[in-house]
């Protein structure tokens, strides 16, 4: 049985990854909207996003809307696959059949 992915298996990062996985593939979400959906502080969210980005699970893209800088976040293909594998591992550990 596969080990639970330590990058995802921590409450905050699990919540972030789960939230990003509800978006359609290729979609991304602005940092403030994600923060609002998760009810997390900006600092806490940034810290965990950095770890997800280092693992190549989250793609951070910075852009401008007018003069306002804006950061968009979305799961990479590897991140989405890792989340699916993680969910599958949990189900197997708990005896839920796929």
């Amino acid at each position, binding site marked *: 049985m596969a080990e639970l992915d330590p990058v995802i*298996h921590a409450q905050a990062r*699990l919540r972030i990854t789960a939230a990003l996985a509800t978006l359609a593939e290729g979609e991304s979400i602005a940092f403030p909207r994600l923060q609002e959906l998760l009810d*997390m502080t900006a600092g806490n969210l940034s810290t965990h996003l950095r770890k997800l980005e280092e693992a190549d699970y989250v793609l951070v893209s910075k852009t401008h809307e007018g003069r306002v800088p804006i950061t968009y976040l979305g799961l990479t293909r590897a991140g989405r696959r890792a989340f699916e594998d993680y969910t599958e591992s949990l189900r197997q550990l708990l005896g839920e059949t796929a």
Partner: protein
Amino acid sequence: MSQASTQGESPLTPAAALAVLREQQRVVSSRLGAYIWIITASWGVAWLFGFLAIWLMDAGIGGLVLPTWLGWTIFAVLFAAAIVVSAVLGARSGRGIRSNSANSFTGAVYGTTWAASMIAVSVLGAALLTRGMTAQLADLFYPSAYTLVVGVLYLAAAAIWRVVQMIVAGAVLVALAAVAPFFGHPTNYLLFAIVGGAMFFTLAIAGAVRIRSAVSHG
């Protein structure tokens, strides 16, 4: 959720992790779709009272017959209002969310298909009128033709975005469009009001209940 529990370093049992994962996805989906029931309800109002107004122009109840100009004005205002509500709340739901080019393409093609098919129905109707379609037949043709197109577009949306409610809405509208002319004019308008209105209100109530339960658990 407490600040401590969001630090991310507390050990999670697999059961707790799966519960966190499912709860988070449910909360996000319901927050992103928080306005859908209001949009659906606005279409319920448009269908019920809009078509009722048209029916009242020709049928009337207990001596109440709506003047033609008033009936069409009510119809136009209610449908325009539903379009505005959908556009404004749809934009609010999607705020901060950026699509990729493939999804944008799908959205653009779908949106254009709406406009093109609506225009096509009006051109088809005009063509039939020039070839002798009577006003009585037009009263059967137009609402059914538009509703058929709307129903098929809902079914296409259900297939593209995998929304089960859209299958219900699309199927009801397609069936309604096909069957309504059998009832003749003006009863067909009453049927559009009651069946269309009831369908949208049922979906709106179901959506509102789902959001409520997600919020109370969230």
